[in-house]
């Protein structure tokens, strides 16, 4: 084809002609090879200009056109359409950009600019010669739309599209649509309240047959392309069946959890189950669950401490009892309420507030005492699920053995328990003194196991009274839970002398009511809980007791309560001291001790004690009690299961299975001496293992979080109820040291309720389930899970809105420090009738009506140094409105507005501003505030009135800042899913600021509202309707077209290296698994050229941007003129 090219040079008024010599350019153009005509016109994009192009195409029979004008992003499409009208293939039209790339930057050197313009035209002609005539690619279209964001922009867009007859899915991440607008008091300049003007739109959208609202949902994944998007939406679980929820609010009334109300900008509190605001759409309730509270996570049996503390706060001890006793079938709840080492309290996040955990064990004590007084003992469900024929033998009737026995029996297994002691409870029976755990309380809990039908054989020592192999052969599964009752010795000289005894044996004798006599002077060796029990028991037997411990008090393994009680009762302590020899004839007379010092940390994390040479000394004693540890008494096992080198039973750490597959072990026999609650945890987990084993199921599936784990959740610390931790209710010292009566008494109901208020609800919902009881339609489903919905749509509108720069960003203004320095949405809520104060303006610090309020413009906006460079556009107007509404609410109040410029560029805005100044007499001060500070309890504004030049220092009751608007959180994540871009601040990038403001560069994805940039409601609604219009024109087409200027792959050259795939942001080019060659999805390809530039073998090229074309252009550009 012989080129017949026409050149059309545009003056663009003086934009181009003012710099470039048009005449010279046209003349030079005529000389270019292949050019048959070159001409110019004042405004080529105008109708006469376009006509000129069309006419010349026809009259000169042109087969190619170069328009020398502005950027192709502006008018390429204009002239390609003109070519179509004149019968020329549009892809034979090229733009030579001589405005943005020539005239504008070179206005100081007209001659050189003209030379450059000629070069640009020449180069463009060179490219054009090789341009192929192309036809657009046709794409089918799914006639549905997706709108992301349920603010006023999203609602308006959804309504418009739905009214146009197409289906819309509206996604909103919070539980209600309405966005920021619904939170406002009134709107400028008309002073309509959003409750009057937005709620009709909200309900309109809800009731519209073409709109599905998906509240509390987020976009998970977007695949596909224009006209054919596949969207996965995660519907977050509201734990309430929204289909049946009537929105009555009975649930919120009984919910005892209180957390800051984010829809009231945290100015007041809401419940864990809540509706964002009264006008919410859908008008339903949602439960906020954040995960597992640290207390519950740390508990080896995951007893819901958060739940029963919160139920106690609500004085619902019946519910608390159910949580403590029934929810986890916890037979030892009353024992735990007395002796548990409470890992829950160690994990408690309340410590962040005042360094003191919730007194969870004492709360539980009240609950179990309440239970005992109401039911006469433990109240638990004894129903056996379904009788089974398998028999399980359990060796040891301690916390691990009995907990396992109860759980297995409940599942229907036949359970036989063997124990050497005369009664049940194991270490709880013989190791814990009566003054800590009365034996009648324990007995009642042990009896539960017999009540549910397990057979317990006491005074039966396995290995002596019954053969272990016999047990193995006669039962389907065996659980070894014999604990660690055998005392360790010190291996010192004279350790076998009379008068030296072991703590567990002493405690056992006392607990089993045997005759025990101690001398006057007793020393106890050790620093654990057994040492404390022995020491306090010895005090009660009338001895003078000294505890000898080789480390310092900080390293003592005993729980602090025990140490303090021992000290209070008169136990003396010798820290950093250790025995080296026991002296005397047959009976002990003296102990030789040595001083110790602490060195670096050992593997237990504690500092290693080392004897101080030559520091030995002797003291006289009558008795020595050794409390330095115990180990399992395991001889009966013989070699049927493998042991560890430490003399404990070797088990799998998840299933607790031993090396013999039908034998399981747990508790102290596995861990060595450990806490009671860990043993219960093992017992319960072994019950699960044995159940699965006997059913032939997988022992390991989904058991990761069965044991204690760490949760880092921290509840709301700012509004925590201020009250010191509840103290234990203990009997006076003098009344307890001479007997074994229980020391810690039932706490008072008031103290327990107050303690419940201290809880900061780390997981938000405590699962106390009081809401379930009152929900008449039975809508509350605490076990609900998130759902993923698949949607197929043709077009997407993103309307994710904005948020405010946080107050903490403005330390000079006391943001986040002074409670009466507010962000503008907080002040809106104070003005709004639907807000926390019912529309009365009261300041947060003390609830007083503020008489002087300062409104401060441009906080963060127009401040590239501390915030953002842009103007947030709406602050001038809403501050004027807020000042007006404040003056209307507080007639004798004074309002000061500090401004730099007042921008009132909208219909009725300037008049509104004038009214605020004239009628409402709001004082406008021109000058930015330099700082806000407190002096003698008064907040001062330090500023300047630049118009008088006077510096000002004004005391105020409240200051409202105009925090800069910033893009919503999570928008970045969303844009990468949608493959659309953002500007430097994170606002959504429009295709063209002026001419394509609601489109993105990704076909089929549109934007609306403040997600693009701050804008007022008027502009937001206009833009939303604009985006909806774009979508409607999209969806109403039979099929869509896509520009054919796409990447192509020469498969002879492609080696399948995949470099192109890595650089393609549109995911349009991929290496085919089978062919091992790159393949282009032309519909997704936006023709950016990244792949072609990256391809190392030169296999990828773009239609009409072939290598040859580009090199020809470079040749022109690099030629000397």
């Amino acid at each position, binding site marked *: 084809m012989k080129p017949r090219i026409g050149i059309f040079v545009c003056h663009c008024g003086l934009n181009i002609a003012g710099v470039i010599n048009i005449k010279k350019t046209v003349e030079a153009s005529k000389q270019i090879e292949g050019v048959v005509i070159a001409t110019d016109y004042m405004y080529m994009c105008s109708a006469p200009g376009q006509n000129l192009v069309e006419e010349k195409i026809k009259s000169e029979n042109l087969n190619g056109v170069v328009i020398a004008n502005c950027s192709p992003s502006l008018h390429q499409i204009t002239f390609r359409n003109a070519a179509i009208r004149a019968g020329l293939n549009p892809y034979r039209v090229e733009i030579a950009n001589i405005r943005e790339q020539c005239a504008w930057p070179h206005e100081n050197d007209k001659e050189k600019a003209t030379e450059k313009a000629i070069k640009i035209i020449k180069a463009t002609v060179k490219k054009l010669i090789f341009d192929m005539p192309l036809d657009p690619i046709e794409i089918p279209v799914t006639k549905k739309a997706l709108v992301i964001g349920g603010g006023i922009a999203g609602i308006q867009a959804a309504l418009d599209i739905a009214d146009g007859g197409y289906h819309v899915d509206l996604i909103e991440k919070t539980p209600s649509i309405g966005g920021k607008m619904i939170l406002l008091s009134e709107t400028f300049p008309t002073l309509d309240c959003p409750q009057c003007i937005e709620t009709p739109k909200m309900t309109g959208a809800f009731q519209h047959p073409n709109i599905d609202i998906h509240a509390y949902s987020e976009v998970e994944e977007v695949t596909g392309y224009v006209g054919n998007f596949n969207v996965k939406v995660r519907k977050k679980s509201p734990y309430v069946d929204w289909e049946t929820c009537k929105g009555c609010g009975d649930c919120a009334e009984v919910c005892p959890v209180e957390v800051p109300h984010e829809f009231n900008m945290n100015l007041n509190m809401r419940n864990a189950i809540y509706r964002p605001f009264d006008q919410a759409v859908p008008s339903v309730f949602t439960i906020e669950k954040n995960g597992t509270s640290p207390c519950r996570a740390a508990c080896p049996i995951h007893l819901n401490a958060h739940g029963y503390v919160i139920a106690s706060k609500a004085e619902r001890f019946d519910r608390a009892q159910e949580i403590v006793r029934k929810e986890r079938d916890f037979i030892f709840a009353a024992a735990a309420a007395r002796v548990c080492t409470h890992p829950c309290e160690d994990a408690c996040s309340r410590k962040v507030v005042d360094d003191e955990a919730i007194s969870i064990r004492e709360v539980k004590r009240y609950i179990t005492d309440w239970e005992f007084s109401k039911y006469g003992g433990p109240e638990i469900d004894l129903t056996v699920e379904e009788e089974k024929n398998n028999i399980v033998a359990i060796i040891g009737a301690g916390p691990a053995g009995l907990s396992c026995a109860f759980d297995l029996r409940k599942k229907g297994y036949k359970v036989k328990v063997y124990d050497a002691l005369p009664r049940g409870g194991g270490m709880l029976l013989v190791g814990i003194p009566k003054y800590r755990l009365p034996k009648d309380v324990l007995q009642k809990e042990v009896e539960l196991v017999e009540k549910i039908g397990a057979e317990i054989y006491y005074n039966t020592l396995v290995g002596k009274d019954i053969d272990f192999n016999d047990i193995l052969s006669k039962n389907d599964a065996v659980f070894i839970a014999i604990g660690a009752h055998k005392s360790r010795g010190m291996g010192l000289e004279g350790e076998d002398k009379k008068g030296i005894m072991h703590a567990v044996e002493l405690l056992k004798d006392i607990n089993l009511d045997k005759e025990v006599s101690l001398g006057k002077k007793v020393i106890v060796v050790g620093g654990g809980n057994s040492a404390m029990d022995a020491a306090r028991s010895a005090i009660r037997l009338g001895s003078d007791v000294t505890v000898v411990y080789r480390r310092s008090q900080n390293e003592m393994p005993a729980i602090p309560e025990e140490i303090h009680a021992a000290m209070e009762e008169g136990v003396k302590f010798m820290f950093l001291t250790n025995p080296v020899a026991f002296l005397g004839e047959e009976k002990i007379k003296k102990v030789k001790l040595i001083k110790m010092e602490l060195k670096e940390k050992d593997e237990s994390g504690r500092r290693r004690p080392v004897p101080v040479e030559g520091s030995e000394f002797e003291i006289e004693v009558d008795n020595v009690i050794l409390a330095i540890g115990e180990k399992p008494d395991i001889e009966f096992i013989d070699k049927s299961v493998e042991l560890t080198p430490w003399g404990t039973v070797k088990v799998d750490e998840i299933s607790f299975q031993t090396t013999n597959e039908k034998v399981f072990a747990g508790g102290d026999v596995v861990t060595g001496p450990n806490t009671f609650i860990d043993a219960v945890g093992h017992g319960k987990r072994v019950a699960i293992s044995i159940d699965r084993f006997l059913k032939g199921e997988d022992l390991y599936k989904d058991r990761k979080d069965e044991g204690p784990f760490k949760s880092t959740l921290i509840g709301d610390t700012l509004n925590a109820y201020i009250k010191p931790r509840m103290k234990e209710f203990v009997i006076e010292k003098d009344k307890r040291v001479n007997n074994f009566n229980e020391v810690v008494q039932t706490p008072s109901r008031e103290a327990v309720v107050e303690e419940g208020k201290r809880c900061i609800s780390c997981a938000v919902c405590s699962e106390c389930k009081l809401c379930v009881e009152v929900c008449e339609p039975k809508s509350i489903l605490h076990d609900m899970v998130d759902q993923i919905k698949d949607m197929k749509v043709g077009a997407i509108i993103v309307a994710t809105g904005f948020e405010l720069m946080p107050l903490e960003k403005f330390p*000079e203004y006391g943001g986040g420090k002074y409670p009466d320095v507010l962000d503008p949405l907080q002040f809106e809520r104070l003005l709004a009738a639907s807000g926390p104060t019912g529309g009365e303006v009261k300041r947060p610090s003390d609830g007083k009506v503020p008489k002087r309020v300062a409104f401060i413009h441009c906080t963060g906006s127009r401040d*590239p*140094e501390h915030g953002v460079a842009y103007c947030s556009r709406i602050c001038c107007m809403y501050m004027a409105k807020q000042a007006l509404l404040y003056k209307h609410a507080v007639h004798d109040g004074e309002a000061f507005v500090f401004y*730099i410029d007042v921008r009132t560029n909208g219909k009725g805005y300037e008049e509104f501003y004038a009214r605020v100044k004239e009628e409402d007499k709001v004082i406008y001060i021109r*000058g*930015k*505030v330099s700082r806000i500070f407190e002096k003698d309890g008064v907040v001062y504004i*330090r500023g*300047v009135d*630049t118009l008088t030049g006077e510096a000002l220092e004004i005391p105020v009751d409240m200051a409202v800042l105009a925090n800069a608007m910033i893009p919503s959180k999570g928008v970045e994540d969303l844009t990468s899913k949608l493959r659309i871009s953002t500007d430097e601040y994170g606002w959504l990038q429009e295709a063209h600021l002026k001419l394509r403001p609601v489109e993105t560069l990704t076909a089929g994805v549109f934007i609306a509202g403040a997600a693009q940039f701050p804008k007022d409601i008027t502009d937001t609604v206009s833009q939303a309707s604009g985006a909806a219009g774009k979508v409607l024109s999209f969806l109403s087409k039979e099929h869509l077209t896509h520009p054919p200027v796409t990447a192509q792959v020469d498969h002879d050259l492609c080696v399948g290296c995949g470099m192109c795939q890595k650089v393609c942001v549109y995911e349009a080019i991929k290496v085919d698994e089978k062919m091992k060659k790159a393949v282009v999805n032309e519909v997704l390809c936006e023709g950016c050229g990244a792949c072609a530039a990256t391809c190392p073998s030169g296999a990828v090229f773009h239609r009409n941007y072939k290598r040859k074309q580009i090199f020809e252009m470079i040749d022109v550009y690099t030629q000397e003129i």
Partner: protein
Amino acid sequence: MKEVVEMKDLDSNFKNQVMSEPNGQNITKCFSCGTCTASCPVREIDEIFNPRKIIHMVLLGMKETVLKSEFVWLCSTCYACFERCPQDVRITELMNAIKNVAVKEGFIHPAFTAQAELIYNNGRLYDVDDFINKKRNKAELPQIENKPAAIKKIFSKTGLNSLVEGGKA
């Protein structure tokens, strides 16, 4: 003071002069919000020092008024304005830029000339006397003496000598 400032009294090149000094280049960013003036501790004592106004006078071209004035010398360089300025006008350093222009144009505050003379003559800001050396002796420090020769060399190399010898810098 005159009723009106006449155009012929304004030097539109003044701002360019200031901007060509180090850290003077951001003066045109100023949008006159007044944060600097409201932050300024000097202004609390003497109202004549008003950074916002000085900046605007420079932008308007009131060269003679600014350079002849006392106030350009009053900045205490506390940097409060510098930190709070939303537009990065770098006011504290800008004041130095204005002072530099003043010195180049032959306007210098006598206090600064006096200081320069001290350094020129003594080689240091404070004259070394017996008292100082006695004290140093007690503290076992080496004795010192006025050594103006090196400083004088620096003065003449940098052109500062014209300042102390009565000429323009």
